[in-house]
């Protein structure tokens, strides 16, 4: 567990993982609480970043490069996602003049 008292010279990797868990939780929170589509989208990006952090940490622990590759792919996917998602948001705004996510509920029933 996290040692109390004087700080160690260097932190164990688990701290990084916990940090990424915190960030992920924050991302989920933002996703659940915010109503602005763009903010919700950014929360998703936050979650992705958290996952990236744990990837990189793992690749540090395992002393292998694969984790970096995966976070690289995550970035690529995020870029694509951002492009398409923002385009969708633009279209939604063009059609409905709103960014309130709850007003975009045509899936209801």
């Amino acid at each position, binding site marked *: 567990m996290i040692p109390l008292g004087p700080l160690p010279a260097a932190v164990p990797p688990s701290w990084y993982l916990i940090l990424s868990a915190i960030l992920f939780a924050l991302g989920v929170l933002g996703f*659940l609480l915010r109503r602005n589509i763009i903010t919700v989208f950014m929360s998703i990006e936050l979650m992705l970043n958290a996952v990236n952090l744990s990837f990189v940490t793992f690749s540090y622990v395992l002393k292998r490069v694969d984790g970096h590759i995966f976070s690289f792919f995550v970035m690529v996917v995020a870029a694509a996602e951002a492009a398409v998602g923002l385009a969708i948001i633009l279209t939604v705004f063009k059609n409905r003049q709103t960014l309130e996510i709850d007003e975009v*509920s045509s899936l*209801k029933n």
Partner: protein
Amino acid sequence: MQLWLIPILPFLGFLLNGLLGKKLSKPVINAIAVGSVLLSFVWVVKTLSALGAFSGGLEETYKEHYYTWIQSGMLNISVDFAIDRLTAVMLMVVTGVGTLIHIYAVGYMAHEGGYYRFFAYLNLFMFFMLILVLGANFLLLFVGWEGVGLCSYLLIGFYFLEKFATDAGNKAFIVNRIGDFGFALAIFLVAIHFGSLDFGTVFTQIKAMPIETSAGIFTVISLLLLLGATGKSAQIPLYVWLPAAMAGPTPVSALIHAATMVTAGVYMIARTSQIYLHSPWALDIVAIVGLTTAFVAATIGLAQNDIKKVFAYSTVSQLGYMFVGLGVGAFSAGIFHLMTHAFFKALLFLGAGSVIHACSGEQDMRYMGGLRKYTPITMVTLLCGSLAIAGFPFLSGAASKDLILEAAYEHAPWMYWVGVFTAGMTAFYVFRAFFLTFFGEYKGKPAAGHGHGHDDAHGHDGHGHGTPHESPAVMWIPLAILAVLSVGGGFINIPHFLEPLFPLQEGEPARWLEYVAMAAGLGGIAMAYLFYVVSPGLPESLATTFKGLHTLIYNKYFVDEFYDATVVEPMVDGSRQLLWRVADVQVIDGVANGIGSTARGLGGILRRAQSGYIRSYAAWVLAGSILAIAYIGFMGLAR
């Protein structure tokens, strides 16, 4: 050795022409289409010479592995190409004849619509045919098999504006499905019983096994394979699609329905000869099917008036010969005949196309005649082809056909005699067509508006209407080359070349067998000359005297009607009455509606969850994932 280049080149041609053919100009399209096939032919030659196929090399199979396609359990199917001597022959025939026919098509299709489409399909066909030939396992063979089926469907229905063309295409496609069904079953059986689809492994396994005396697994597999072969190679009972397939443009008939695709069945049986050799019974059936087909088709061919139909039936009967060759165990003879047949039959069809072209789209021989004045080159080349198929001495057809017949005599004399008789008939109807076309007076069309609508396109081309005209050089040069091949093709000693694969039967057959066959051929020619040049009145009187027989033959033994009555109608009615009225409406719909209503009932409860609010969904996802993590995590810790 880069075998993959061979099929890829035509595929590239297909992509280029198919995707941007609309924009390209005709010369570019020609360059792409012909060039790609020509390149792959060159590459075939280079590869084979590198493998020493021309210098007595290539004793055992040369194989290239590309990547693993399917890996499931014990079954491991990989995409790899293989070349042995059989493949070498097929490759040479397919790419060589294919190139010639592409060149011919440039001239023939010059005035047709959908130009780029046609060549794209043609290249695609070459691609699949080469896959079929090169594939080193049953599945690749099947891929090519289906692919060529598709292309033949597309090309038969090329003039998709005419109903008969699309009908013919559907006929070919559906009839082939029956055969493919058998083939697929055979493949499954092979996969189950030998745990692999790779030719090498399967056949080595089979070699070790004993030849089965009673019907066993080998018989089942080989009969199913035979079903597939009859479908693709238009043998009884599935031959009906081939004559209908003549609705396609003539180059297609030459390439697909004479030279290459229809011989796929023969190739397949030769390829799987190990299985057949282990089941003599099935082998006999192959021979009998072949013989019957050869005979029946030849008789039908006697009374056809459409020149392409005549050659179509002769194709069927020649394929029958090949099956006889395979059936009596002379595989190499069958392949030999396959090659020579590719030469002279392609020649005949292209010649027929040139004749049709000359008569501005007329296909009925009764309205031709006397063309020898107008189209000398076509006549000469067509003469070579006819002599070759009629078994004239020292020509290619004779060489291969005699081999088959001798083997048949070794096997069972009666087969030999039927075969000889059929050869006589073949000579007769081929030369009937020849004389009707080139001798006598040019009759021309009595009235406009027949001949196949699509070929009327030629009527509108630059050349004059009424008087026939010689075809352009781009069309008769391939004819000339093919003529040379079909004259001299017999001296390529294929059986010797294939010896490492199919050992020849030892023992020199009696000479008189050949002489009898030749005599039959010459007799047929003579009779045709007598009937259609010396005294043209004779056939009519004969037809009237043997009226019943004539109508029977003229209507192709009413086989189509028979199939319609026995297969098609019952199926339609049955599906309408039983499946639709009863099964579909009452059972299935009832069940479906029941399920639907129940689902709606349940859904009413669940619907509350679907609020349409993304975030509530997210909340559910979160809850689920928490549960999942909890389960996995703590289970993981527990152990």
